[in-house]
């Protein structure tokens, strides 16, 4: 019996606004999301935004905390933000596609891995641990980061959405979702 199973694979054959995993079954202990990202927007780079259960509002009082450690070029940073209406990652694992300061390497995609612990438990907040990175070939714009975000709701996680506001993920980007069993 396989302990890790692929739940869904999302490959962007064309530029796409988001990777949206819906109706995630509650039959696993943990989830893992893994993939590579590139951005088709007009700025040099972007960070992924996340919504859990399609919730991206602070109006209900159910908000996100984001915290990470990262190295960017020759500097290291520790950052934490609370009461966020959505999850956004400080560092930038996705280069822009068109010609720009950093974006000339069309084959260059950032990396992303995220684990959601005990995601189906309706008595716990949603805790997501993230590792990601991006390296530019020609510019000193390189990032490795690690940390987490937390969604205050106790609801079981049944939907994960990765998007980039106002633009698209470039074709060739992909995200896969895996389930990890405990029995």
């Amino acid at each position, binding site marked *: *019996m*396989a*302990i*890790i199973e692929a739940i869904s694979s999302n490959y962007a054959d064309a530029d796409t606004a988001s990777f949206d995993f819906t109706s995630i079954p509650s039959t696993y*202990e*943990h989830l893992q999301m893994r993939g590579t990202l590139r951005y088709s927007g007009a700025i040099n780079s972007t960070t992924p935004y996340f919504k859990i259960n399609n919730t991206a509002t602070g109006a209900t009082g159910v*908000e996100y*905390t*984001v*915290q*990470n*450690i990262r190295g960017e070029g020759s500097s*290291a*940073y*520790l*950052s*934490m*933000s*609370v*009461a966020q209406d959505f999850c956004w990652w400080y560092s930038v694992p996705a280069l822009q596609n068109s010609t720009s300061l950093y974006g000339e390497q069309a084959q260059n995609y950032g990396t992303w891995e995220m*684990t959601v*612990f*005990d995601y189906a*438990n309706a*008595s*716990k*907040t949603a*805790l*997501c*641990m993230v590792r990601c990175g991006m390296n530019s070939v020609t510019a000193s714009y390189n990032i490795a980061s*690690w*940390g*987490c*975000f*937390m969604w*205050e709701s*106790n609801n079981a996680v049944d939907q994960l959405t990765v998007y980039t506001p106002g633009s698209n993920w470039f074709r060739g980007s992909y995200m896969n979702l895996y389930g*990890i*069993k*405990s*029995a």
Partner: protein
Amino acid sequence: MAVWNVINHTELGSDGATLVDWTSISSSYDHLIAMLSTRADSTAIGESFKVQLNGDTSATDYSYTNMYGDGTTTIQQENQTGQATVSAYPRMLGTGDGLTNNFSGTRIYFFDYSNTDKFKSVLTENCAPSKTTGAGQGYIYLNSGLWADTSAINQITITASSNDFESGSTATLYGINGVA
């Protein structure tokens, strides 16, 4: 042959100082990974827990290097030798966090754990984000630990440094295979 295998899954039905005491761990895998979802039965913002191997509680055989940070902007680092735990400060939140049901997430890797020609190396990733910024709030922690012993790991014990783990805390131990 399955690559990942569940060795044990534990969920605390009541508060307890010990999360797990996994004994008689089979030596038939290449690596072990523990995945934890834990909360402290404490009024503090957070409490730490410790990881000990083969019942060795003496403050001589473990050493570690930690990189960690709280709700400030200062990254902290320390390294210690002659310690009584291989992973000293992974954190879990208590009621001082102000958010009920906020559980930390932890992943612990035990590399080549049954090789009797090697000391045992352990890598810990732990996140305990709170809903308030500032010193002592929120916690992210990376640890590289060493148990200076060539014995195969056959026991892993995870205990709270003070107070208890809260009921509902979970721990799963996986055995990871390579090519047969």
